[in-house]
């Protein structure tokens, strides 16, 4: 079996970039005359973009890593056992072919492709690609996080420093929890300077890992939404853990996670926003 190494990162970035160009962007805002999107509904287009992007990425990865476990959002819908297999696989790739489908369908240019590489239960590499601008965030475990611009520029990513809670900008996604907890956590967010929510975890991780906002949290833990972003955020210097303080691992799908600038602010945000 082919082993994954850091040298494979450009190969993976290229795969995401090509899927964005060939399968996603032609279906975005499908209004251009003669495009693949002409005369199709926005729901059909987002479904197609999702399926075909995942297919293209899966096939391209297989050319080099024929035996790896590949866990895509679409494939997992048909075969939910794929997620639990993540814990034990020697090598696995986790794909979200279009993260931010609400935005994609609404014509808002805020969506991404997420790809995580998992080796024996640990995320070792993560990529978030923005098909609109062509930029990619990447991280390899222990190697830091980088923002690679479409035009070729490269920047080191760093999280924002912790601040007083009322000066921090962040969000805790509450869409997947019961009504009383939603109201409680939403009200607690009034302690921060400003909440934001872009309907796209790729972009939320992007903003938190490049130091544009302070924290993000989620209750629903589908691996394709979080594995890549969590590694990138950690490699940018941030701290992510499940609400109970335990480490977030591939295959975990419940418990909620919080990403914050450092351990101290992580504890404070958990106490003031999630638990209060």
């Amino acid at each position, binding site marked *: 079996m082919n082993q994954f190494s850091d040298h494979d990162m450009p190969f993976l970035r290229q795969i995401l970039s090509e899927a964005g160009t060939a399968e996603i962007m032609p279906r975005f*805002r499908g*209004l251009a005359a003669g495009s693949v999107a002409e005369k199709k509904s926005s729901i059909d287009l987002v479904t197609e973009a999702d399926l075909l992007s995942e297919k293209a990425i899966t096939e391209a990865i297989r050319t080099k890593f024929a035996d790896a476990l590949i866990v895509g959002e679409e494939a997992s819908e048909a075969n939910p056992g794929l997620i639990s297999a993540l814990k034990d696989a020697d090598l696995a790739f986790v794909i979200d072919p279009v993260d931010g489908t609400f935005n994609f*369908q*609404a*014509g*808002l*240019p*805020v969506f991404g492709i997420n790809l995580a590489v998992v080796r024996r239960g640990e995320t070792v590499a993560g990529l978030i690609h923005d098909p*609109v*601008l062509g*930029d990619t965030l990447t991280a390899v475990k222990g190697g830091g996080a980088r923002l690679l*611009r479409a*035009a070729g*520029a490269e*920047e080191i990513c*760093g999280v924002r420093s912790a601040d007083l809670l009322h000066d921090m900008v962040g969000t805790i996604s*509450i*869409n997947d929890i019961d*009504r009383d907890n*939603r*109201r*409680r*956590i*939403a*009200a*607690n*967010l*009034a302690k921060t*300077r*400003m*909440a*934001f*929510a*872009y*309907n796209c975890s790729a*972009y939320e991780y992007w*903003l938190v890992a*490049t*130091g*544009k906002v302070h924290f993000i949290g989620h209750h629903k833990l589908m691996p394709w939404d979080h594995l890549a972003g969590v590694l990138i955020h950690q490699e940018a210097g941030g701290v992510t853990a499940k609400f109970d303080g335990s480490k977030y691992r591939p295959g975990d799908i419940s418990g909620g996670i919080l990403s914050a600038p450092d351990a101290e602010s992580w504890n404070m945000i958990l106490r003031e926003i999630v638990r209060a």
Partner: protein
Amino acid sequence: MTSTIQTDRLIDILWQAVEVEILPRFGKLSDEDIRTKSEAIDMVTEADEGAERLIHAEVSKLMPDALFVGEESVAADPALLAKLGGADLAVVVDPVDGTFNFANGVPLFGVMMSVIKGGETVAGLILDPFAGDCHVAEKGAGAHVVKLDGAHKPLRVAAPLPVDQMLGASSTGYFYGDERANLLANLGLVRSTFSYRCAAHEYRLLAKGGMQFALYNKLMPWDHLAGALLVEEAGGHVARFDGSRYLPSHTSGGLLAACDKDSWLALRNTLFPQRA
């Protein structure tokens, strides 16, 4: 008095500002060190000022009698704002709406313009540089999306939904203290709420049927006049929190936009039960 409003000419002017003053600086931000915060903010300021200057100069040629009101011009002459309500003819501009996104490399910002006659908004334009289209409303003549190639398509808000099924944008950063905490808790009663930090895109999304409501507290005319008319002309209902009509002279009282009057009232009473 100037004759009928030449919206096509006004759209051309906005495109000119996008090409000459706005997009080049967004690209430049991407290539340079976006982590130098002061530099990013300078770049937004330059785009804002440059675009407003260009639009002001071009509008003055087209509509020499119109009062010109923009964020930058009001900063230089605060008395302009008070003249808006009584002006025979005025043009109100927000050259870059969504400055947080612009400064942080998020391709989610817009250019907004409204035309005021005798204290009423008679035209509203919201242009998205990345979609390559402008959403246009003229009082009594409906709302349309106008593509770069001139193609038109009518805009229509979504069918109304019960409060607990609504999706919508809420900008809660300008509420304070208990009022903010109570509002955030009550927003936990809708299906999902989010904030793209860009009123331009939120109004566009509501007017084309992509969500069911939008809520704001800070009412600078350049942020809301165009969007309010767009939503009304697309069939929606827009009013201040007390139910009164929103006018160009208003700078307080909050603003809620929804798909129709009944769903507006149901949502207002859920979010602000003390007003019910």
